[in-house]
């Protein structure tokens, strides 16, 4: 069993080996225990500074990262595009170099452009954690999803996971497919033809356009939101939200028709009544809030393991 990560940054699940993923999940177990203590804090990162740089809106992910950093005793600085110089024409690289000039050791980056995290990793000295780059990857979400599945079932290998919804625009779906496949789960993508990428089947996943079929097949259903903000001003991907909900929305009636237990997941934010009905989102079948809780432990594990590779003198 490996004790160190094979990478210096967490840019995507694509760069991780199965050993890396398992190391992160095992380490997260330790932090989950820390978070259950009366004093939920350890001193591991007390001499490090982490910058959370968010060029895109986020509540859950930013909060989760910030909590993870604080529970590890790191110093934290936050930067969000709305309140920044990017509005005044500063480039990504300049913004980040300015922040790094203030001696930041790790950067958590969310950006609307795919590859932004890779670009930064190549051009700066800090360790980068990708917190979502466009429709490319969102690795910590996939890791916490895998962790939550493992916590629920005791394993990931051999399980059947259906990812339902706007696959085309979803970085969560892409990272999840990679992560689940590396851990040995079977994956099915389900959604309207227009929202499934053309060559998705080449990833070694099943494709379905029928939610009932997907639900009968799977042990876990990960329901994704329709990403209106990424669908742009072009032609519509489906006729109406109402039709989408009719075909791909999960509600109690549809759930009861499956005739077996399927665990419901959602990366948030939920559009209640669109992809998932309110009562199911809050039901015993859903592990949505456990996902959020596990998110902090998994992010602590990622930051901790990346920090372990940093020289104490601050040289990368």
């Amino acid at each position, binding site marked *: *069993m490996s004790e160190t990560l094979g990478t210096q940054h967490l840019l995507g699940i694509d760069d991780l080996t199965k050993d890396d993923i398992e190391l992160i999940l095992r380490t997260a*177990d*330790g932090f989950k225990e820390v978070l259950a*203590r*009366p004093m939920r804090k350890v001193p591991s990162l007390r001499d490090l500074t982490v910058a959370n740089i968010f060029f895109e809106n986020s509540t859950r992910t930013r909060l989760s990262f910030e909590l993870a950093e604080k529970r590890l005793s790191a110093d934290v600085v936050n930067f969000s595009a709305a309140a920044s110089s990017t509005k005044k024409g500063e480039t990504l690289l300049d913004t980040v170099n300015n922040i790094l000039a203030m001696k930041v050791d790790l950067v958590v980056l969310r950006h609307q452009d795919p590859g932004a995290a890779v670009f930064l990793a190549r051009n700066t000295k800090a360790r980068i954690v990708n917190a979502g780059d466009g429709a490319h990857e969102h690795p910590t979400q996939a890791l916490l999803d895998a962790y939550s599945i493992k916590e629920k079932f005791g394993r990931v290998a051999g399980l059947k996971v259906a990812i339902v919804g706007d696959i085309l625009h979803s970085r969560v779906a892409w990272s999840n497919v990679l992560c689940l496949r590396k851990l040995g789960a079977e994956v099915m993508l389900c959604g309207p033809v227009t929202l499934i990428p053309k060559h998705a089947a080449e990833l070694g996943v099943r494709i379905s356009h029928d939610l009932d079929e997907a639900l009968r097949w799977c042990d876990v259903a990960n329901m994704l939101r329709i990403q209106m903000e990424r669908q742009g001003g072009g032609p519509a991907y489906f006729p109406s939200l109402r039709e989408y909900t009719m075909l791909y929305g999960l509600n109690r009636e549809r759930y009861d028709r499956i005739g077996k237990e399927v665990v419901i997941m959602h990366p948030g934010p939920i559009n209640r009544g669109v992809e998932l009905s309110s009562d199911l989102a809050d039901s015993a079948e859903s592990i949505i809030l456990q996902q959020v809780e596990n998110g902090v432990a998994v992010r602590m594990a990622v930051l901790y*393991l990346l*920090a372990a590779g940093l020289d104490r003198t601050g040289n990368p």
Partner: protein
Amino acid sequence: MRALTILSEPAFGLTVQRLCRQLVEDRGDLGETALVGLHPRGVFFSRRLRTELARMTGKADITYGELDITFHRDDFRQRPVKAVPGTTLLNFSVDDRRVLLIDDVLYTGRTIRAGLDALMAFGRPRSVELMVLIDRRFSRELPIQPDYVGRAVDALNGQHVHVEWLESDGKDRVTMTRDEQ
């Protein structure tokens, strides 16, 4: 490499028993006492103590926990050390308890320092005492001393003390080896 025996198998057992008797003599029925073993190697010792104390006092419900100090180490990022934690099992509040920290070897004192730090995350104990099977004297880097000692050893730099446990190594014994010159 020649190994010098510090505790043979019979002496090992007697030492553990003696420490238990000493503890009972000092603390009576152990009502307020909590035994806390330190991962990774101290827990073999603490589990043994728990069993022995239960046999000796007839009390099956001795308060017992195990503590992992990985996240509290002061050498994180200084040298390649084990980064993945063991399992902390401390399902009681340490508030107002008399905690006995348990480890196999006391050497520089840094592990115990981290252990104290980790322990305080679970509350404010009334007191903390330290029991070790082997005390390597004159090698401390911090002002930490044990309250209960199985055997004190004066080892030079370049000498290594090995504690073996039946559960993990197939045999109870303590030996010392020396680096080849």
